[in-house]
């Protein structure tokens, strides 16, 4: 007992000495935290419930901000801060906390922030805001929109080509939350698949959440069991459930990644990957650009950045030596050029209702 007490005392003594050192060093960096010379600008990032390690949307945005900070040689720990929202009740307080704390640029990623940003931005006219995937018309907000249907069209072409070649008559779509935004992903995918394989039956299911991998996995199980071999997931981290299900099944089951190149999220033990291709949405380019704009004083409040296939803001990931064959890549690029040239116009309105499936002829 005595020995134990002595040990405890020693540990606590050591801990408190360390605490002394720590508080000293952090408080110096803490002063640099403010408007000190270390940070030319301070960037705050409010994520939705997904968090910056969602292997998708939020992560991509965070990488963009960090890339610019790295190029400029900023101390990322001190100049860039992220707050993860635990629920949608947190959006307003989180945005407000960042603005109050004097961040020069506050970034909110996702259409879910539309209402809260409309409320917070007018209260902090000196703070610059940035929102992705929705348009908030405030003089101190820059919005970025992505023509997700165009990129989804190309991965649809990839899915259609592969399914047709293998004789699979069904392909799947796993969406996050039903609505205008994810609807565009679904619409582009439908049109892409049917452009090369009109007889294909497309199965559509929504997870009703962007942060529920287990729900995504259940849907993947259902779709794979029904004869689907390729699932396009546009469901944030819910989609990771589909990836893990495909990994468990091994060869001949594929998932199409979303938002960023997810090839390595699908890595198998034998070095292959279950990711057929990814619909790349360059949220990182958007956040990189806006960080740069604020830093260089070219931030134009109230403007809208449009990212589409013409400025390579969206597209299909087509590196060679992966799951796509050279012929498939060639065909995808052909369709890419047709969309760029305006020969094909991709509509953002889906035709298959949630929980159902259909072919081109059954829906047109």
């Amino acid at each position, binding site marked *: 007992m005595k020995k134990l007490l002595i040990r405890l005392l020693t540990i606590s003594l050591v*801990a408190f000495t360390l605490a002394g050192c*720590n508080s000293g060093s952090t408080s110096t960096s803490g002063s640099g935290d403010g408007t000190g010379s270390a940070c030319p600008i301070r960037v705050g990032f409010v994520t939705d419930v997904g968090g910056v390690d969602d292997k998708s949307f939020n992560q991509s945005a965070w990488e963009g901000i960090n890339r610019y900070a790295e190029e400029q040689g900023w101390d990322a*720990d001190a100049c860039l801060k992220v707050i993860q929202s635990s629920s949608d009740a947190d959006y307003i307080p989180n945005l407000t906390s960042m603005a109050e*704390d004097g961040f020069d640029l506050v970034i909110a990623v996702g259409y879910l922030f539309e209402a809260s940003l409309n409320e917070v931005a007018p209260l902090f006219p000196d703070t610059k805001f940035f929102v992705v995937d929705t348009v908030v018309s405030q003089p101190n907000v820059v919005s970025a929109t992505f023509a997700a249907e165009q990129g989804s069209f190309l991965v649809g072409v990839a899915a259609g080509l592969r399914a047709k070649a293998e004789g699979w008559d069904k392909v799947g779509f796993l969406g996050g*939350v039903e609505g205008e935004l994810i609807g565009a992903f679904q619409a582009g995918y439908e049109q892409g698949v049917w452009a090369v394989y009109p007889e294909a039956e497309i199965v559509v299911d929504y997870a009703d959440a962007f942060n529920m991998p287990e729900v995504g996995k259940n849907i993947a199980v259902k779709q794979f069991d029904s004869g689907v071999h390729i699932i396009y997931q546009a469901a944030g981290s819910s989609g990771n459930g589909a990836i893990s299900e495909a990994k468990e099944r091994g060869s001949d089951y594929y998932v199409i990644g979303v938002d960023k190149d997810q090839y390595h999220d699908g890595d198998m033990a034998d070095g292959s990957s279950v990711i057929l291709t990814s619909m790349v949405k360059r949220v990182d380019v958007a956040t990189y650009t806006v960080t740069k704009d604020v830093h260089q004083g070219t931030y134009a409040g109230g403007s809208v950045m449009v990212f589409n296939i013409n400025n390579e803001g969206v597209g299909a990931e087509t590196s060679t030596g992966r799951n796509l064959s050279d012929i498939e890549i060639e065909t995808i690029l052909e369709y890419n050029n047709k969309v760029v040239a305006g020969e094909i116009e991709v509509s953002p309105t889906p035709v298959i209702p949630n929980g159902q499936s259909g072919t081109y002829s059954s829906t047109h």
Partner: protein
Amino acid sequence: MISLKEKRWIPFLAVILGLVAGTLIVILSGRSPLIMFATFIKAGTGIDLLKGGTFNPRLVGEFLVTTMPILMGGLSISFAYRTGLFNIGAEGQIIAGGVAAIGAGFFIPIDNQFIHSTICVLAGCLAGALWGLIPGLLKARFNVHEVVVGIMLNYTAMYSANWLYKQMPLNQMTRTENVPVSATLNVDFLRQLTNNSRLHLGFIHVIIALFLFWLIIEKTSFGYQLRATGFNKEGARFAGIKVKRNLVYSLMIAGAFAGLGGALLTLGTYGYGRVITAFDNVGFDGISVALVGGCTMLGNLFAGLLFGLMKVAQPALQIASIPKEIGDIISSLIVLLVALQYAIVLYRNKIRDWFKKARGQK
């Protein structure tokens, strides 16, 4: 057996030990515990010690907004627990209360905010009470355990509420339009007073609820009967107390408290109804509040404020580069330590004996 006096000091000790452990974890992860404590103080009082004691009333407002539903969850669990029931269905009752309040907001056209919002809040209480009635009846009539029914009803409530919300005017697939202002608890006066926080009139309802809880449980013969039932069901029955009827009433009143919490969430914090895919855990947080608060009115108040603080401080912690999970860790440790109260008393006795012995040897 632990004496009543000991029951009182154990939560305080648990809070202190929880904070000490949190401090150690923050130190071990290489951050400053001083900043952590300054952040907690900032989130709770609005006074920022790191910036020369500047005061921001918004933080106080948000602190209260976060605390109120958790506190109501705690009252709900506590009320049932005093009757010997474990109301794990509080989560579902909160959801039921929320959807009823929003429904009343949309479909009862009254322009006067005082009347309309009061009706909406009462609708929430009523819905919560009805959701509590089901496990109450099943318990009284068929002796089905309220925990089993409660857990199932939580899911029933969530999916039914999702369906109901989708029948209301929708803004997106995941939320309704904002309810008419007359239905909400938001007033400009409180907004201006607290530098645009979301503080709403719900705090008046919470104060009334706290008072009613205390009045019913401690001061009425009905409450006495409930407590007697909680201490010993058979004994209470033998003394002529209508135990079965009391079980039903107890769960209904607990449900009404939870329903009020749900109404405060939807009418105050949000102002719209949300289609959710996972529980908000307000009711489950209530279990922690009730446990730490010892199921008394004052205990609930303090524990509710404490857990609200641990929640609301999370964004500020992240800005200060301290992982937000530290708030969860501290609250969990406190719950754990309170749950381990027998062990704490045991060790205290051991240490006391050891000191006595040491003194005796001299």
